[in-house]
């Protein structure tokens, strides 16, 4: 854990002004009260481009308190540009402690992954959402999709699954697989891999979703039913890998394919860097750990 830096006094606490934070909290309360329902909110300009995570950052800014410990991940990694920048941004505008450890964080802002380590009571997971409307590709009209959500006329969304099975023999979506929240609203789980969808079901953590460009918030409260859409004869399935993580040997985590040279050699490694490092620290060793060290794939951990 890094030493908490001081809050930069040139900025209001959490960067946003107090009225904006209150507006966001009100919208969040509504979102939590109606799980999966997209609540419009007055998205603000942030010091980065819309579509780069402004929705998640605004939620974090509205709810972060001085006692919080923040973790930021980008595609599972703690050490990529986006994650590092978000962590530094909040360290500067709030002075809160930051961490890479999933269990120590009270607030986790994520882009497109849920940590491998199970979340617990009291933790909050904030997602950055590019496209909050799961029906948009089929139905361009916003007034029409609102009616469809209002009356739960969810037939058209299954066309997407039907087309996949008809053309490829299986549901080919690997990310952003639509979910039914609390048996009522269909929501987009953001572009998290569908591998992570089951982790949303009955999660003890509060899950908040922010789409800054599209100006929508939604939420999955703790211990809420989340079902991934499927057909009765084509149940929801997860992708599998033929080999374990090359670094830590995990057979249960989500793996990224990494090309390591121009001789077409590749390895599969955990996308959750903290999880992978922790396992290596505990003595687990993957089949290609030495090779990975030689191409600097192992990060800072042992």
């Amino acid at each position, binding site marked *: 854990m890094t030493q908490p830096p001081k809050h930069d006094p040139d900025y209001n606490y959490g960067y946003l002004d107090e009225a904006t934070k209150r507006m966001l909290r009100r919208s969040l309360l509504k979102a939590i009260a109606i799980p999966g329902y997209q609540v419009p909110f007055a998205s603000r300009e942030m010091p980065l481009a819309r579509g780069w995570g402004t929705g998640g950052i605004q939620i974090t800014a509205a709810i972060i308190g001085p006692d919080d410990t923040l973790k930021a991940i980008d595609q599972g990694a703690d050490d990529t540009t986006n994650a590092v920048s978000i962590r530094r941004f909040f360290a500067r505008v709030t002075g809160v402690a930051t961490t890479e450890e999933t269990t120590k964080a009270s607030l986790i802002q994520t882009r497109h992954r849920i940590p491998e380590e199970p979340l617990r009571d009291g933790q909050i997971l904030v997602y950055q959402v590019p496209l909050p409307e799961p029906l948009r590709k*089929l139905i361009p009209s916003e007034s029409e999709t609102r*009616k469809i959500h*209002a*009356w739960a*006329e969810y*037939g*058209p969304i*299954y*066309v997407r699954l*039907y*087309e996949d*099975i*008809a*053309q490829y023999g299986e549901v080919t979506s690997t990310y952003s697989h639509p979910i039914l929240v609390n048996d009522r609203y269909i929501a987009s789980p953001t572009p998290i891999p569908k591998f992570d969808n089951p982790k949303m079901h009955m999660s003890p953590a509060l899950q908040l979703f922010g789409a800054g460009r599209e100006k929508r918030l939604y939420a999955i409260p703790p211990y809420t039913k989340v079902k991934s859409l499927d*057909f*009765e*004869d*084509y149940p929801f399935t997860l992708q599998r890998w033929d080999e374990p993580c090359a670094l830590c040997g995990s057979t249960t985590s989500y793996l990224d394919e990494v090309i390591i040279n121009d001789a077409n050699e590749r390895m599969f490694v955990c996308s959750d860097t903290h999880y992978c490092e922790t396992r290596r620290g505990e003595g687990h060793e993957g089949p290609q750990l030495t090779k990975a060290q030689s191409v600097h794939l192992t990060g800072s951990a042992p």
Partner: protein
Amino acid sequence: MIEQAPLLRVQNVTRLYGGRVGCRDTSFNLWPGEVLGVVGESGSGKTTLLRSLAGFEPPDEGTIHFRRGEKDHDIYALDEANRRAMMRTEWGMVHQNPRDGLRLDVSAGGNIGESLMARGDRHYGKMRARVTDWLQRVEIDSSRIDDSPKSFSGGMQQRLQIARVLVAEPRLVFMDEPTGGLDVSVQARLLDLLRVLVRDLHLAAIIVTHDLAVARLLTDRLIVMKDGHIIEEGLTDQILDDPHHAYTQLLTSAVLSA
């Protein structure tokens, strides 16, 4: 037929576009299993009337009652959720242009399947079987099931649209110029198909057309419209063989062999 209650009761329906008249003071009944033709020149209010009846445009005056079970529902007094539910399950609309009634970026099977998924079907295998069955019924080779409707001819697209509507097992079908824009031989086959389907499924249908041959072939009863009004109404053969109104006489005499 007489002792049954009407499926659709249309009373004094008026639809105005600003000062212009779409249709005015239109009243008629439609009984279950009956095929009603609406004929008239273009601009006479046929399509306006049809869109009002099908739930797309509320009339400015008048009421439209649809019979479901033992009850008559005033379709525009229902809230929108219920009206949309009835539009999905009780009746369907075949558009003049198949591109208005189909999803062109979804396969033929997906287009028909969507109607099934909309009513709650969630079993792929069963849906697939029904879709295949319906493709055959509208005489589309079932090997085209996964092809895009974009690759279909105009006549095939129209038949696909009909399958998409009929697979939901509606009791009433609205058709707006179903054979418009098709060449004569394709028209003839489509009409033949429609006639068989309507009789087999005991469907009620309202068919808007300006083609008296279509009306003669498909419909039991005919309404003639001019300038937004119904000017003549009766059995199809009666009207076509012995037209009373001057305009209807003009209409029938303008056709070579209706």
